[in-house]
């Protein structure tokens, strides 16, 4: 007992670990990003392939998403069902998401079980038995998902309004007809062309060093180590131009407003700083002064490679006119009013204490790694670093960026559209 006491105390007195994030390019071209959190009780893996619905072949919309589903059917040596059982037994979770730009595979597991599950997951992703997968039934699963997801994902709605002229990415889930056109051969061809090391980033966050993560990848990956000469040509996707200014309304069963700006030349670090301040101003304007019960946020996001600063307000009540006015005031205020010292302190404090870790950190890194870019370039991790607020530069950026030609407005409610 006397020996156990200090150990118990240590666990009480310690604070949760913060990650040290590093990235490197492995010899086969894969980017490895590791967030080492000493003593973390949970491990997270994100395997990002920078290809998504935006690269679906003509008339086969939904292919990238269907492929993501079929990968979970397992590899030749490991049936998907057996893998799921081991995940469930360990109390872990797996999932995957397909956006226009990227497909991201996710694993979150208790530290003890993480290495073995991560290894099995990497084997499945890098060597899926696509020829044996049950394509017919998975089309039904995807159809159900598309039905529920397309009416509920706010960011997907915004993506589809901003890039609606990009035919191939118009509907990431596809239609019944487009999914029927997808064959096993086209899936395998898509996989072989896009699931290649230089087009991927493996992210590991948890109690694992960079060297251990690299060894894990070397043991498990079955992706072809050499890039074929024509891969770069295959991976060149068309340049997507957003439809701005955008002022649109969509009917859906939620009430939400997006207001933001396209920043074609914007500095991501400065954008992150402006977003910090905007988060506070939206909260202040709508929740504190407006007295409205709602969720507000502001983010710098990349959609199809393009940078946007977007404010969002989602509500359970129908006060859309007041919401839009309040959001407009918050944006305009950034250009008109300098931040006070008290505001600066408040925003900096919040940003400092809410810096992501664990699963959240893995998610943030995956978003950064999903940005389309030339092969063999590393993820810009600087957007994940703390930003020192500079009052003058934030005001100057707001004056320069918030112009009518780049405005993005989308209002979602049961009474719109």
């Amino acid at each position: 007992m006397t020996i156990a006491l200090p150990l118990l105390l240590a666990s009480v007195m310690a604070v949760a670990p913060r990650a040290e994030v590093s990235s490197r390019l492995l010899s086969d071209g894969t980017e490895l990003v590791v967030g080492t959190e000493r003593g973390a009780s949970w491990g997270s893996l994100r395997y990002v392939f920078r290809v998504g619905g935006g690269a679906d072949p003509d008339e086969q919309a939904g292919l990238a998403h269907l492929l993501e589903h079929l990968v979970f059917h397992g590899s030749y040596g490991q049936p998907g069902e057996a893998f799921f059982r081991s995940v469930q037994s360990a109390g872990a979770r797996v999932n995957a998401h397909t956006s226009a730009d990227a497909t991201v595979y996710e694993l979150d597991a208790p530290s003890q079980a993480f290495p073995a599950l991560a290894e099995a997951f990497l084997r499945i992703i890098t060597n899926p038995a696509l020829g044996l997968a049950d394509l017919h039934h998975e089309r039904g699963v995807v159809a159900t998902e598309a039905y529920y997801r397309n009416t509920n994902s706010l960011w997907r709605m915004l993506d589809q309004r901003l890039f609606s002229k990009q035919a191939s990415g118009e509907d990431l889930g596809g239609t019944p007809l487009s999914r029927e056109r997808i064959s096993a051969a086209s899936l395998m061809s898509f996989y072989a062309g896009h699931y290649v090391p230089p087009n991927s980033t493996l992210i590991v966050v948890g109690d694992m060093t960079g060297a251990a993560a690299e060894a894990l990848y070397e043991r498990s990956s079955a992706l072809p180590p050499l890039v074929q000469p024509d891969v770069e040509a295959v991976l060149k996707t068309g340049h997507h131009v957003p439809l701005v200014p955008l002022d649109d309304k969509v009917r859906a069963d939620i009430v939400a407003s997006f207001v933001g700006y396209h920043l074609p030349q914007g500095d991501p670090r400065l954008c992150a700083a402006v977003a910090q301040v905007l988060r506070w101003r939206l909260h202040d304007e709508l929740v504190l002064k407006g007295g409205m019960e709602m969720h507000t946020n502001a983010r710098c996001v990349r959609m199809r490679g393009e940078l946007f600063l977007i404010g969002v307000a989602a509500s359970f009540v129908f006060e859309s006119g007041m919401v839009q006015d309040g959001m407009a005031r918050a944006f305009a205020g950034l250009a008109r009013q300098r931040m006070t010292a008290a505001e600066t302190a408040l925003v900096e404090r919040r940003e400092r204490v809410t810096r992501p870790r664990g699963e959240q950190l893995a998610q943030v890194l995956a978003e950064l790694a999903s940005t389309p870019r030339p092969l063999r370039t590393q993820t810009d991790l600087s957007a994940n670093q703390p930003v020192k607020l500079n009052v003058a530069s934030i005001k100057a950026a707001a004056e320069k960026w918030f112009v009518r030609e780049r405005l993005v407005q989308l209002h979602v409610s049961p009474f719109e559209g």
Partner: protein
Amino acid sequence: MVRVRAGWMVAACLLLWANAAWAAAGDVRVVVDRALNGEFGMAVVLEVGRYDDGDNPGITRLTLESLVGAGAGGYPRLLSDTYAAGGELEVVVGAQSSVVRLHGPAETTPGLAVPILDRLFRADLRAGDVDRARERALSRFGRDSRTLLDLVASLAVDDPRMRAMRDGEEDTMDAIEAEAVMRHAQKYVCPGNTTVVLVGEVPPQIEAAARGLRGGKRTVRPSARLVTPSTFELPHHMELQVYLFPVRIRSAADLALAEVSTALLEQELTRVLRGAGVAYSPVARLLHQGWQAFIMVQLALLPATIEKAEPLVARVLKDMGKPFPGPRVEAAMGEAMGERMHATLSARSLLERDLTHIRVPGLAVDALDNATRRVTPESVASFAAQTLAPENTVAIHVTRAAAWRRLEQLVRSRQ
């Protein structure tokens, strides 16, 4: 200095072993789940809800909003402090219980816990506090009534008072007198009627402050039961098939068996329905609403596949009554324990759950894990045969069709 430190060490270690310790009548109940996860969470669970509103629909919501908004700087100060701390605060009023939830970074959020407890239990509530809270209370009703189980409670419960529950509206809210709010607060919002759940990195002084709360009585109500079997159609913007199976949970063994069976049921539904290509992500969850515990099955189905899916679901429910191979049950046991560990490691997910675990007195996570290890294929089969039987089922079809019919009726009634 050394003596203080040693004393704190002993106190800290004792607190570690004091998980889910229960206090005497009149005292607050405190449940602590510590985890080194960088987060702090507090859920103040009050045994009062819309059931207790009586002739003043909305009075529970108004009371809680008044209390939270009272005190130095009022509601704006509390919200600003919460924002600066990187935390989130919400008040949810349920059928028979309500929760004030706070969560955020462990570095800053604990500093808000005691001020919130102070506001709830020690505020010198005034008429002005009530008046300032009226508009805010009104704007929050929409959130409370969205709970599916609340809707079910209004339809399928054998207690007429529960079926008659309703939200406040602008005129009824205006009619609620400040004195009535003060009486409501005095009667129901008291430590003796409260469980405080603390999770994540919990400073000892916060736990000590919670444990020091005393006074008032626990609400005693007649037990309400779901009427089974029954079938309902609920209007909504989505198509969902929902099944509820009432369960009785009185001990760690009951809870462990229910959790493992629920995990196995979800695995089976996923295997069978996804294998047939008719569902996306079937869900089976154990929920406890204070007045009743359920296993809830929720299926997102395309309208065109409902007919194909129904016999498959019936087969899965029936087959659950036969013993599964040991490894399948072990996987479900692992999932139940893993889910528990995940909930503990992530303060947020524990607080967002329905707080099932606090409904079982004297329960600690260790006791539950031990009980989970004792679950056998036979005990799951026996439990499932009774619980998932057709005569123990409430089936709810949540459908757009009913929503359209209701809209049509509304339009006709106005013509």
